């Protein structure tokens, strides 16, 4: 397996917390051609990446009907046609980051279903190829981009090895897994992944997207949804199930410094699950004697949430929910660039009071990702 030695940058960073204007924790950079990824993947599986259409990947078939990129900027190709808005790092920097005042963007890529692909080795090879390619083509040449170590969690040993391989690279700021999963993520088989996260002081990011694909159970607790609208509307339930599992199985007793960032899940369901969980724990806690604190205490301390897409609500309702979940500390700005079909990501946080907006745009991300962001 190829490894990439961290290289130093041409010049040191000059920005500080005070000068930062915005940190975007969710930029979906995309793959123009799998031919580009293949050289960065383990040699034995490169031929599977270069087959026509890319590597075999199970898909769920839910699809946005309508304009996918909303008002996101679009490049124009030589023939005057609109191109993909997230395949060229220099263009993305100039047309999105610089224009919108974003200083740092964390790359989350286009592959969010690796953890439910049936072939563990294939999934791990894709993760390695994408990670190396991201580092070489997006992160090393640009200060403004930071990476996520993509892992395929159905093989925890390989996932942990990938984290160890790249965990101290200054360009990587978190570990990224699709939230779609055969089993809830609190289960002990996944703990080596969390141990590796903690070993390298990396937050764990979970991102929806593979639900219902491959080895995933149906995308809801009562079977397959009918439409993308229903599928996407239901996806926060996956985070609820993972939260229940990780708290109940004692993940945060074992890994007390682990932080988990939940992408694209919204926040309005959190009061319900915190209060329901606490109430049940009072009566049933003898079943899980290792869960020493009220579940809501772990949820408040260990989980972080992102802004795209926040539930549609009044400003008063949003303020009330943020107070209930201590969102002042736990909410992070995410643009979901270039997938702006639901609207402009900055408009979604316009209603926040200025001090809180500053926390969401900059300070909370700094607290989650630490010094690595500015390295």
């Amino acid at each position, binding site marked *: 397996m190829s490894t990439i030695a961290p290289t130093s940058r041409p010049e040191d960073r000059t920005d500080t917390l005070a000068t930062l204007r915005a940190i975007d924790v969710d930029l979906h950079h995309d793959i123009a051609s799998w031919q580009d990824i293949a050289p960065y993947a383990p040699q034995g599986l490169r031929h599977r990446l270069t087959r026509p259409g890319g590597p075999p990947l199970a898909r769920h078939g839910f699809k*946005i*009907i*309508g304009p996918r990129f*909303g008002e996101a900027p679009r490049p124009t190709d030589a023939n005057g046609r609109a191109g993909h808005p997230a395949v060229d790092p220099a263009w993305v920097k100039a047309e999105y980051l610089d224009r919108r005042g974003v200083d740092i963007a964390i790359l989350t890529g286009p592959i969010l279903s690796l953890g439910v692909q049936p072939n563990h080795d294939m999934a791990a090879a894709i993760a390695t190829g994408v990670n190396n390619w991201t580092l070489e083509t997006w992160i090393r040449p640009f200060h403004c981009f930071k990476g996520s170590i993509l892992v395929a969690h159905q093989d925890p040993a390989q996932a942990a090895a990938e984290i160890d391989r790249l965990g101290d690279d200054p360009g990587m700021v978190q570990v990224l897994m699709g939230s779609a*999963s055969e*089993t*809830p993520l*609190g289960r002990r088989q996944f703990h080596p992944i969390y141990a590796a996260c903690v070993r390298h002081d990396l937050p764990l990011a979970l991102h929806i997207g593979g639900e219902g694909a491959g080895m*995933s*159970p*149906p*995308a*809801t*607790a*009562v079977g397959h*949804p*009918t*439409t993308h*609208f*229903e599928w*996407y*509307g*239901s996806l926060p*339930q*996956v985070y*609820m*199930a993972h939260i*229940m*599992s990780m708290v*109940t199985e004692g993940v945060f007793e074992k890994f007390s410094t682990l932080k988990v960032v939940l992408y694209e899940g*919204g926040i*309005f*369901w959190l*009061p*319900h*699950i*915190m*209060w*329901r969980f606490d*109430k*049940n*724990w009072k*009566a*049933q806690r*003898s*079943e*899980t004697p290792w869960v020493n604190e009220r*579940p809501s205490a772990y949820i408040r301390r260990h989980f972080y949430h992102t802004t795209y*897409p926040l*539930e*549609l*609500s009044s400003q008063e*309702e949003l303020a*009330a*929910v943020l*107070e*209930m979940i201590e969102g002042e500390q736990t909410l992070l700005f995410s643009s979901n660039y270039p997938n702006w*079909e*639901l*609207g402009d990501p900055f408009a979604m946080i316009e209603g926040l009071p200025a001090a809180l907006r500053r926390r969401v745009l900059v300070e909370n991300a700094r607290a989650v990702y630490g010094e690595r962001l500015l390295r």
Partner: protein
Amino acid sequence: MTLVIEREATFVDRVAALRLVDTDIHNDLPSIEALRPFLAKKWHLWLDSGGPGSATRYYANMGSGRMDDAVNEDDGLAAGDPEWVVQQLMTKYRIDIGVLTGSTIGLGIQHDYHIQAAIASAYNEWTLATWVRPYECFKGSIVCLGSDPAASAAEVRRLGQNPGMVQVLMASAARIPYGNTCYWPIYRAAVEHDLPVAIHVGSEGTGIANPPTAVGYPSTYLEFHTDHSQTMMAHCVSLIADGVFEELPTLKFAFIEGGTVWAPYVMGRLDRLYPALKAEVPYLKMRPSEYLLRNCYFSTQPIEEPDDHQQLLQMLRMMHAEKTVVFASDYPHWDFDNPLMAFNFFPADLKRRIFVENAVELYGPRLLESNRGA
């Protein structure tokens, strides 16, 4: 004309006199043998074998699952005797009308829907004979199987005019979300007879049901029970997104024992998505939250318990609880909410809506009809 006004006034007076309506009382079936008089002869061989095999779940409560003081030491049953329930629940907690949800909600997740549909019919007759006809304070649920919509629709039509039956009841555990058109025959029958449809948690992950979460099986009862509300949310999203409430605008749908204050998430997320994604669901005519507020009801138990009571009220306001929430005790189960204690911090008008008026709107005038003709 005078007569009409008099009758309406009487109805209003009777509603005004109500103190509390309980939408979730689990009366217990003493044994499957009790159904023999109500079961066609061709099925009696099943009873001779002790009844059909039953898929049961692994997840077990740390206690018995019932309140200790709800168990009658003479027969070991909790809520097995209507007189017991009248004294221990209705009188003690000042409940005027109780809707029976029984102990057979999960029939629809058993494999053999032929025998289970027969059992559901017999069970409904048993409920009428032993609980509803002898007692004006109890109302029954028409227990149905999501797994056999044709048989369920027929059962709804068979009992749909019975004044003792106030709703259709199915398990929230399912293989296919409840918005799917395969279930619409049940809903059409319910609408024809002015009956709401209720779903109730508990059988998740058992028998033919989907795993209890969208990421598989939890490990513990604590996790399993807390996860239950996700099945409710999934059904709620499905019912709205598949257009059930557009097709059947008068259908009322009640979510029992799945919590309440997740509804603002469903409303807020679907309303966020709808303007951008409506090309995919062109049959919808209103914002998703409008369907939820018009057609859905949520029962209180187990009511969420934040440290700061005001936060619960804030969430309830977001979902217009004054129109959408009804009281449930879940008697005799372990997480019973005491109506004399749990709602004392609620504003009086909201409490009145939840305790009485919303239930009257959910079930309609039948809730107050006599059971004599049941």
